[in-house]
């Protein structure tokens, strides 16, 4: 097992290297350069554009720029410099990482807590009215994009005279020190993004859980267990759920990269301080090292998520073992 994990981890290095080269190439293939967008500003001259290009090393060939970045990463763990913010990329990402992870975890928790029981319920009560209603809402949740859900929630809150229509805090609490009132204010704002982001996840997970449970329920070992006269709850929790949950573990692993790119539009619509909009901005503005670092982080999380999912699967499912 340890051997397997080690091999997988070492295998990531060449993969990431190839990914970084491809990402850099794609960023470079976009038309225009970082400095172009400023030329419309009356206080900006062409000489300044050239000076900036020189300061940022943009006058060097692309391969040199990439090489220097890579060398910095390997030798100093330096992920380059954000052109837009005049600061190292790592500190720019660091500013937003806390809220991003917090929101993602809360949303993940929310969607799992709702979706797994609902999926089981609809599987065991396939033809009941409640299950049909839950299924219907599942479809609706799948069909509505998260940003639209966010906009609808905001419109609803506005309609009822609420003021919590975006952000994580009321203006007065943003830079206030932590207090109970601030926590309450946070909760008052938090439910909108969690609902908007979580809803889509709930619907998908619920369908997945339902399908795999149904699949498991027709298996021989369930029939055997029932025939042995095991009580219903043991059949369900010991045999059905444990086997049905396997595909969800893989799904959870794959959802890690959504930390970065999953919340772009919702974060813009709800003005949330997460990493998503930063990725968007850096790509649009050709802030190349920030974009590259974020894309790499995303790829890295995907690989790690896969690895974790595989390890978790091996632990959860006795049929899957690595030697």
């Amino acid at each position: 097992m340890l051997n397997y994990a080690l091999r997988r981890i070492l295998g990531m290095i060449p993969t990431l290297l190839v990914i970084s080269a491809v990402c850099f190439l794609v960023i470079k293939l976009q038309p225009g350069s970082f400095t172009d967008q400023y030329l419309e500003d009356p206080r900006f001259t062409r000489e300044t554009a050239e000076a900036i290009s020189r300061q940022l090393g943009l006058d060097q060939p692309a391969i040199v720029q990439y090489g220097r970045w890579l060398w910095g990463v390997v030798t100093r763990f330096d992920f380059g410099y954000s052109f837009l913010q005049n600061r190292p990329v790592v500190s720019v990402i660091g500013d937003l990482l806390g809220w991003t992870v917090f929101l993602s975890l809360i949303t993940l928790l929310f969607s799992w807590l709702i979706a797994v029981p609902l999926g089981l319920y609809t599987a065991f009560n396939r033809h009941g009215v409640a299950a049909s209603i839950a299924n219907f809402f599942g479809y609706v949740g799948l069909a509505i994009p998260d940003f639209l859900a966010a906009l609808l929630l905001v419109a609803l809150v506005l309609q009822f005279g609420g003021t919590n229509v975006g952000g994580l805090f009321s203006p007065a609490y943003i830079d206030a020190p932590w207090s109970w009132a601030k926590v309450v204010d946070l909760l008052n704002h938090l439910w909108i993004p969690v609902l908007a982001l979580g809803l889509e996840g709930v619907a998908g997970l619920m369908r997945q859980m339902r399908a795999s449970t149904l699949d498991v329920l027709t298996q021989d070992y369930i029939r055997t267990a029932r025939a042995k006269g095991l009580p219903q709850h043991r059949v369900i929790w010991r045999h059905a759920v444990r086997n049905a949950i396997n595909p969800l573990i893989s799904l959870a692993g794959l959802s890690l990269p959504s930390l970065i790119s999953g919340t772009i539009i919702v974060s813009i619509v709800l003005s949330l301080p997460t990493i998503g909009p930063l990725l968007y901005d850096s790509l649009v503005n050709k802030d190349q090292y920030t974009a590259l670092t974020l894309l790499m982080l995303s790829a890295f999380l995907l690989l790690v998520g896969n690895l974790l999912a595989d390890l978790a699967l091996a632990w959860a499912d006795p049929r899957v073992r690595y030697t």
Partner: protein
Amino acid sequence: MPKYVQIKPGLVSLVTLALLGGALAAPKKVTGYSNLGITDGKPGGTYTLVLGDSPQSLNYYGVIDNNLGLVAQQLFDGLVEFNYANYKIEPALAESWTVSPDGKVYTFKLRQGVRWSDGQPLTADDVVFTYKNIIMNPEARAGDAGNFKLDGKDVTISKVDANTVRFTLPRAAPAFLLQQRYFIMPRHKLLKFSQEGGAKPADINNAWPSNVAESEVVGTGPFRLGNYTAGQKVSLVKNPNYWKVDAKGTKLPYLNGLDFLIIRDPQAQVAQFLAGNIDQLNITGAQFPDIKGREVAGAPFKVIRSTALFGSPPFIAYNFDAKDPALAKVFSDVRFRRAMQQALNRPRIIDTVYNGLASLPGHGVAPANREWYVNTTRQLGTFDLAAAGRALDALGLRDTNGDGVREISRGKNLEFDLTYATDSSVYPAMATILQNDFGKIGVKVNLRGILAKNLLSTGLSGDWEAILHAFGDQPDPELRKPIWQPGGALYYWHRSLQPAQDGGTPNVARMFPWEKEIYNIFDDAATTTDRSKRKALYTRWQLLFAQNLPVTPIAKPENIGAISNKYGNYIYNLGVIPGYNPVPLVYQK
């Protein structure tokens, strides 16, 4: 040396008074705006505005960023500033100034008793430091070194005494005074990042990053930095040392605090405004009906319309150097551009795209700009598809094969791409209207959507046939010379005129006669100090522009602002215009 005080007569008494005051503190009295609805306010309260994104740094000269610009405007001042009502230049940190008769020496006397927000006195050293190490520093990203080289020679700045600085120009430059609205920065805080303090020229860009300690950011403006929460909010607090007072002598600003909420999405900004979390918001014509409707229904805010001097009027440009030689030939023919102007339905665009909140554009100068604008409305022509069709017929561009599209040559349709921004509130609708109307006279337009951010770089690259774009109007045409002077760095619809090397002489031989005339006008006007002569030159330019249409202007949008009823003394917030900041007058009722 005889001195000529070049300020408006109404201010002479104020300035004289200030001079008599000598070493006494001389705050500036802000009066004379009763026609803008300005009254005496009362101190106190907090006012919340919106930023489209987090400021990228707090060093105004270190990044080019409009969001920082909006904040910096409240933190810093320049030597001179605009009058809120008529855009004339009046004293700010400089209490008075003199210009030598040959227009080459500008001497600024600083206002007595001005202090930085940390209590240090403002001196001529700060001004010289700011100009030499920052503004004239070619490595400062948002510096402006280019404006301090005239005909290849440097403008020099020197300290005369503790309160006086002098600029010596290699030649007369009448727009020079208008430009000295640059924010003055504190030497005592920035010295260590400057060449004077032993750092490299480019190091100035690293001063005051967005995670700087709040107390480091020191200015002379109405507010100082209170707190910056990345991605969420910038809070400013009143600067007790501010140098302006109202008519009664009450210290400005009235407000105790000024908050900027960071909200990227325009819809979300509107939602926050409607929820009462934002007190003032600039809106577009598209958002107007909804918000005005709520006002009429009794919502606690007002929507205010005003004609715009600054701001970008959209135009359509045809590429004189299009890759397809047949198109290039047609596009550079003025008769074609005039014919197409008749197919441009300006009233419909103003009605449907701007909801009626726009007016006919000028040619390079906003109609609201009484100083320079010449009425060229008649040259805009009227929308007349039949006449446009006849004019194209007369050019030999006829539909010979009956497919509804004119032929540019045998078997080749008159067809071109129109590049426009898809992520803008006005361009997509405008592009569709143009495509539709042009199609009716047998000119086939293919829409090519790109991001607004890439419009200019696409324009400059030459890889386009027709483009919808906008360049801002400014109070003095001299400030937009790179755009409107043929061969200028931004005169991209005729790129073959641009000099082989930056700063070189443009390709005058390739200019059309009218372009050559405009080229000379801009060169002459840049050195003419006589106002009436400059006016005559720019009048001629606007007429040439209107007749020859280097680009075809479409409309001039109005300014629309929404403001909560809780606040008084609101004047439309122009955005980042250094030297125009009416926020100190705003008060909470």
